[in-house]
């Protein structure tokens, strides 16, 4: 009778390298056999690999949890779904069903929101580039336009002239909240007085009405206190504008920037330890509101959270295609998903889970994508047990930014599915084929190979 087989491994015995946190868990590994109630096997069998999977349950739970953290502390809260984080219609629709309005940063995103059925007055139009045409469309449909620079004031005044009415607008601001790097390229600077000058200019023009202030202090902000500083500065400016120019500030949009439970490269602690709870942010922000608001004044608090809402609801299933031993002794795996569809791999160290129990000790490994490019590395240093060809890795969290920033490069982008309740699975973006890639391409007649040969 033949013996049970186990992949051969050899490990050097290391001494003198112990630390106070204990040794690395050579036999521990993360196994994931399903997402919600759907097995990984069934998903791959039906929709192929690689495959993006979004959990509707997690999307809704996350939204409700974050919404609850703020709405139980402040009476006037609105969430705006940040389209650029993930603008697949199904994902946007889930958040809109939960009550979020839309936050867009381009005409294309604006059109997507409108096509989805979001009314113009439920769309915040941000961003440093808004064409005159886009502004005209957004203003005429009642969108909340956030002004980024002086030229946009001039453009909006032209739109006001054309429409023959005054337009409500919000000023985008930037400021020092102690966060480095300081995001100063968007909007008007508060600390230098630039924002007040812009307000004065708008007042002088007489064609625009400032009814909101907006500021986004950065991304993946791990310090809740920074939001407290932001709110204080925004409210002080709001009252200055109200007092000097008699505008009524109806809303304060504090942007987004809350981190997800993903691990940034170069960080030591796990996200469970390094990422503050959403309640910590809510507490700092709402406390700053109550501390700085005038009695009886409760302007609308708008949040444009993206990453924190969607990141953990997204998974990428990828399959091991081959393995090799690197000259430095590390094991290398080539999987079928590359950095072109996993854009956040440039700054995240993902959680890697295996779809099955595997025997053998973990060894230092590298996970490469399938692209013929040296930069195509999903994980440059992780501990994995010996994995056979065909084993699947489940990469997470990948819900934020990947399906908007992904690149079509040398292969087709894969299916994206949404797991619903009771094991229901819907394709929310079909895998591409050659027609998708070539639909917009044109070959001049004189370059046709058939005509050349004839």
């Amino acid at each position, binding site marked *: 009778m033949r013996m049970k087989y186990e*992949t*051969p*491994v050899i490990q050097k*015995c290391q001494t003198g390298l112990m630390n106070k946190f204990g040794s690395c868990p050579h036999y521990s590994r993360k196994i994931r056999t399903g997402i919600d109630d759907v097995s990984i096997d069934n998903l791959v069998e039906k929709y192929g690999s690689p495959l993006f999977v979004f959990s509707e349950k997690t999307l809704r739970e996350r939204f409700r949890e974050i919404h609850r953290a703020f709405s139980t502390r402040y009476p006037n809260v609105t969430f705006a779904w940040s389209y650029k984080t993930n603008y697949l219609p199904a994902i946007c629709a889930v958040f809109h069903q939960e009550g979020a309005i839309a936050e867009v940063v381009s005409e294309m995103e604006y059109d997507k929101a409108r096509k989805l059925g979001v009314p113009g007055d439920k769309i915040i139009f941000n961003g440093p580039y808004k064409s005159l045409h886009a502004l005209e469309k957004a203003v005429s449909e009642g969108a909340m336009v956030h002004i980024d620079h002086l030229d946009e004031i001039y453009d909006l005044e032209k739109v006001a002239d054309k429409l023959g009415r005054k337009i409500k607008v919000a000023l985008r601001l930037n400021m020092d909240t102690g966060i480095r790097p300081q995001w100063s390229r968007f909007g008007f600077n508060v600390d230098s007085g630039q924002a007040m000058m812009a307000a004065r200019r708008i007042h002088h023009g007489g064609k625009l009405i400032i009814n909101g202030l907006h500021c986004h202090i950065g991304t993946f902000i791990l310090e809740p206190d920074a939001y407290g500083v932001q709110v204080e500065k925004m409210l002080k400016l709001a009252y200055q504008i109200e007092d000097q120019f008699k505008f009524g500030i109806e809303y304060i949009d504090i942007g987004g920037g809350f981190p997800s439970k993903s691990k940034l490269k170069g960080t030591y602690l796990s996200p469970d330890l390094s990422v503050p709870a959403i309640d910590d942010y809510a507490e700092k922000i709402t406390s700053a509101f109550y501390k700085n608001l005038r009695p009886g004044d409760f302007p609308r608090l708008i949040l444009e959270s993206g990453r924190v809402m969607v990141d953990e609801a997204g998974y990428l299933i990828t399959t091991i295609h081959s393995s090799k031993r690197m000259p430095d002794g590390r094991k290398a795996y080539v999987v079928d998903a590359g950095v072109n569809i996993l854009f956040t791999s440039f700054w995240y160290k993902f959680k890697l889970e295996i779809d099955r129990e595997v025997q053998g000790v973990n060894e230092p490994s590298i996970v490469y994508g399938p692209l013929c490019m040296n930069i195509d590395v999903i994980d440059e240093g992780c501990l994995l047990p010996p994995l056979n060809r065909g084993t699947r890795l489940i990469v997470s969290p990948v819900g934020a930014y990947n399906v908007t920033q992904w690149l079509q490069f040398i292969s087709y982008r894969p299916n994206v599915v949404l797991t619903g309740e009771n094991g229901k699975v819907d394709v929310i973006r079909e895998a591409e084929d050659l027609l998708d890639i070539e639909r917009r391409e044109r070959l001049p007649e004189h370059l046709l190979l058939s005509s050349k040969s004839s």
Partner: protein
Amino acid sequence: MNRSQQLAISENGFIFDPTTGESFTTNQTGLAILNRLKKNESSMEIALKMREEFEVSLEELERDVADFIDHLRTYGLM
């Protein structure tokens, strides 16, 4: 040079390299490969013989034996 012949290998997979003073651990299959390497068997011979002893396909064994030998090289044991 096949340095595997100089290694002290215990029955439970503990390996001592008397040249460098370094020690290693391996599992049952790794031990089987090492013992055959000591007898100067080629990787193909090892794979063919081990296939008779273990529940595994020849393809998987070939790949694993090659990888194991690569790994021994990186440790300077081959």
